[in-house]
């Protein structure tokens, strides 16, 4: 299983969980697995199986858009981070 970090602004969609386990060989597998269990999250960041433009996905510290996108492979030891922008400076 691979641990995915959920940003604070998307935790309503993961029932408050800050980290969620998922399995798969690619980022697409992980997102399918993850959003299959949290449909609200799917609607937010992965509608129609496409990654929403406002959220970045990092595998081992690299933005998957600079690698192979949703086909970027993930290993069991990978750290995966979901990250939208945060505006707050207040």
């Amino acid at each position: 299983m691979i641990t995915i970090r959920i940003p604070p602004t998307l935790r309503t969609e993961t029932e408050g969980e800050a980290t969620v386990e998922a399995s798969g060989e690619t980022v697409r597998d992980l997102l399918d697995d993850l959003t299959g269990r949290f449909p609200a999250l799917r609607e937010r960041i992965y509608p129609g199986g496409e990654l929403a433009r406002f959220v970045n996905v990092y595998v081992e510290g690299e933005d998957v858009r600079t690698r192979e996108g949703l086909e970027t492979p993930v290993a069991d030891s990978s750290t995966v981070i979901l990250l939208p922008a945060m505006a707050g400076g207040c």
Partner: protein
Amino acid sequence: MSLRDQVREISAEDARDADAVLVDVRSDEEWKVGHIPEAVHIPMSELGARLPELVPDRARRLVTYCATGRRSLIVLPELDDLGYEDTASMAGGIVAWQNLGFPVESDSALDAEQRERYSRHLLIPEVGEDGQRRLLETRMLLIGAGGLGSPAALYLAAAGVGRIGIVDDDVVDSSNLQRQVLHSTAALGERKARSARRALQELNPDVQVATYEERLTSENVDRILSDGWDLIVDGADNFPTRYLLNDASVWHGVPVVHGSIYRFEGQVTVFKPHEGPCYRCLFPQPPPPELAPSCAEGGVLGVLPGVIGSLQANEALKLALGIGEPAIGRLLLFDALAARLDEVHVRRDPACPVCGEHPTITEYIDYVEFCSAR
């Protein structure tokens, strides 16, 4: 040289041992390079105007000196005219003084008070006197004097950043005081920019503070940035301002130290135009408004902006000093609950509409609309 003049010259050794006020009559530049500790400095052309104020007691023994002893001898008749009764010139000037191995003090960068104030910086080889002087000559603009701006401004002012600009149109509210350490209970209802200026000047009178009691907009951003800033510390609290600031900073070529916070988590990075990615390379689009709650809506742990704002100050000081590895192309992610600092890479996007190879955005847009569009 007349006998009278010879009588009025004393050796450097005697000058050192005399219970006298040493008066350096050389130029400002000569004085800065090196002078006798405890001496007073009045360029010879200003003696008449300034000496009586500095040394009112006409019976006080005065010993003048210059580089080699010529100018300091020439000025003695003027001292006579001013009424000083006991004056002499140091033969051979500061050259003779130094040849005897007597101490000379250089304040090419800092005065005695500054050397004391910044002594912990001066002890660090990476900063030192040159670095401190650099800080004193650096101009930093802070967007927001709130959660992030508070610690950043305090540390930057304490460090002796010579000029700090503050852009904030807000007033101090009691709900700010849980984290905005720049402001005090006494400042409730006051403009944050003014409250900030007072706090910073009380902390360090070396710092000049420029205030802009306005919200950063497409209309005023060029004017504010044209005031000449070496870098910008972004502590804004909304997306439209952040995208506006990004575009302006790319076009003005000014680096931005970015910070943002929410609840227990914060992000820090440095956007250096054309050397590293910009904010749009990192986040081409803001989240929809319902996924972008402000601290006012979602809350924030009071100390979190302290951590993130201080990390921003750290990056700002490194950039100003030209030391270390600035967080360019690296986004630091701080999680207060886990006590963990992660890092992800941020790359320049060749297709970036602002800093990419073929920019499609070349003038200010409607940022509110851009940030509310889905």
